């Protein structure tokens, strides 16, 4: 009779609480707190019971089915699960199972810490695990032991503090009554179950990071060169590229930023019927220049097809695609490469030395972004040493060079003050020579004056 009355009361108030919950469902935690408070209201909320452990009685427990009865909507189970998942309620019987069960299993509220500290402190999980270790005398779960040793490695220098703090916290908890101790322990356990970090395993992401780190390490270990030698190299580079630099030489036909004529850009677009001469000349500077230019790559491909070694370039392109492409497609791309280029009897079989081939085949079993690096490097150097010099000497290239256009500089306008400038600003070389002349004149004039501070 009494239970019937209780159930009726619950059903009657569910309408009021439903409205409140609908408003508060998807907003900030403070509003969630209001829901919790409404749930605990002695008049309107649910009936709290006592949890009976062996000899201890702890109040403020409730059953799962009570929580669900509070809201008579289809969303109530989902909302209840959310409450458990985010730690507003925690289960008392099976703490690891963070679900709201619609039966007699007991739950309890806890105060959810609203803002965690911004800096990650490793002390908190370490102290919790140390406490648990002491209490259970070494019987931790597998993932807890793993986490414990990881933390031990990470904050090894302060491990004495961790152990001392764990002991002190246990001693402080002894000062409280048994029921309170149990509640606090359950709360802490629930908190760490919810905030448990995912178990670490060596994932592909780690392998990729490792490869990137290795590349940086190799770069750091490169031989240092004397600045006199590398300055010579820099000078040679500058001389080679002098004619190709728009600031030093100006761009033909005219600088689009000044003359508002976009002919320069259209002539130097990715794919044009006839490339400019400067562009074709640049292909002879280095192999990378040739490959980076779309038209150059196409021309080179035509040449290689004549020489029956085009599969090298296709392979290199496919490897570049993997290195710079989407992560999700890596596995299938690696499969394709294997099928087309590396498998015995493949359509476009590439010639790689046996050591690299073995290493690559091993790596294909766990494909990641940099798995084809060694093979790609091998083929790149093969092309660079072998095919590239021959291409530069070939008729194909020479014809290209002859066909290439040299755009005419836009004629100066009739009116002098409407001259279209080829140079965006006076070339630094010109200003330097002018300054040197002026200095020479000044020196000549100042030769008569007394030798003073000459700067």
């Amino acid at each position, binding site marked *: 009779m009494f239970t019937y009355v209780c159930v009726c009361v619950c059903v009657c108030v569910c309408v009021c609480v439903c409205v409140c919950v609908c408003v508060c469902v998807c907003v900030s935690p403070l509003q969630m707190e209001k829901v919790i408070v409404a749930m605990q209201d002695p008049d309107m909320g649910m009936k709290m019971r006592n949890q009976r452990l062996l000899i201890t009685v702890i109040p403020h427990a409730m059953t799962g089915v009570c929580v669900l009865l509070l809201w008579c909507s289809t969303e109530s189970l989902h909302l209840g699960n959310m409450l458990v998942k985010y730690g507003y309620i925690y289960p008392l019987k099976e703490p690891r199972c963070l679900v709201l069960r619609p039966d007699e299993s007991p739950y309890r*509220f806890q105060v959810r810490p609203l803002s965690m500290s911004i800096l990650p402190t490793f002390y*908190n999980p370490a102290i919790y695990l140390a406490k648990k270790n*002491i209490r259970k005398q070494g019987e931790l779960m597998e993932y807890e032991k793993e986490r414990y040793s990881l933390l031990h490695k990470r904050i090894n220098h302060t491990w004495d503090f961790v152990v001392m703090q764990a002991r002190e*916290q246990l001693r402080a908890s002894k000062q409280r009554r048994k029921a*309170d101790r149990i509640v606090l322990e359950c709360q802490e356990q629930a908190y760490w179950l919810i905030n448990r970090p995912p178990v670490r395993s060596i994932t592909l992401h780690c392998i990729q990071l490792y490869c990137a780190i290795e590349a940086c390490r190799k770069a750091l270990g490169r031989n240092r060169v004397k600045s006199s030698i590398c300055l010579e190299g820099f000078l040679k580079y500058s001389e080679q590229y002098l004619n190709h630099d728009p600031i030093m030489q100006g761009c033909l036909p005219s600088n689009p930023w000044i003359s508002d004529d976009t002919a320069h850009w259209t002539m130097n677009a990715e794919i044009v019927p006839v490339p400019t001469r400067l562009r074709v000349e640049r292909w002879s500077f280095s192999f990378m220049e040739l490959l980076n230019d779309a038209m150059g790559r196409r021309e080179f491909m035509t040449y290689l097809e004549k020489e029956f070694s085009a599969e090298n370039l296709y392979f290199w392109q496919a490897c570049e695609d993997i290195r710079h492409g989407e992560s999700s497609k890596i596995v299938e791309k690696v499969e394709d490469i294997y099928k087309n280029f590396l498998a015995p009897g493949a359509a476009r079989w590439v010639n790689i030395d046996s050591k690299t081939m073995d290493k690559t085949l091993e790596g294909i079993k766990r494909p990641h972004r940099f798995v084809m690096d060694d093979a790609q490097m091998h083929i790149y150097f093969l092309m660079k040493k072998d095919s590239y010099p021959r291409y530069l000497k070939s008729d194909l290239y020479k014809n290209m060079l002859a066909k290439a256009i040299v755009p005419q500089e836009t004629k100066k306008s009739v009116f002098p003050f409407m001259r279209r400038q080829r140079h965006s600003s006076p070339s630094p070389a010109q200003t330097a020579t002018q300054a040197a002349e002026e200095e020479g004149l000044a020196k000549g004039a100042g030769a008569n004056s007394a030798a003073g501070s000459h700067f």
Partner: protein
Amino acid sequence: MPLVNNKVGNDCTVGTDKTLADGKDLVESVIKVVACYRHLAACVGGCTDSLQLRDELRQTREKALNLAEAIRLHLTSHLRDKSLPEDQRKEMELLWVAFSSSLELLHVDMCKVFSMGDNFSLANTASLVQTGLQGGGSEVAARALSLADLNQEPPTLPAGLESQERSTMEQEISQIDHMIDDMEKKVNVLRWMVEPRGPQYADPLSSTESASLALLSVDEEQPGHEPRCQRSLIFVFLLLFAVVLVAATLSVCLVLFS
């Protein structure tokens, strides 16, 4: 100010041993106070939250800050002394690391209490979460303050304690911030060079302590625990049954032979 130690021989080692022992005592007491503060902070926002709890938090905090100031002066002065022998320096560095870790923990706990105090105002007791806690934290606070027992009668606390406390908390939090920064600037301790003394797995506490604590641990989903619980229940029932049986036979005997 660096200490100039002119004494040679046994006297100076005794002096530094004493300072080391002092430092250790201070660091141990600050760790104890920080642990107690954490315990008290766990109750904020729950049904046992009250003005008295906030007052206890305040007292514990004051004690922690006083201890922290003392340790900071002590350790900074010794670590800046260049004539400190190497092994003493290593000990000091261990203490330093422990002290800075406890400061960081205290800072985190204070920030937590501050933000919780914002959201769970004592003015509206209905908004406190019913967490199942029943008792207050007076004993924990007494342990923190190293008093045998706190005042028997709770002092009359002013109603405006909460807002007053908030402003002092803000000041204290920034005080700890400055202390941490200051420490980093004044003394350069290479943390990765410091080696701890103790083992990775802490030895269990003394047998009496661990036994009593083990009894409290709540049943988890480990297969070992379930039969243990059932076994104890069965034992209790058997005992009861035996007692009832004895009582029954005694009464039967009484009836038969009277």
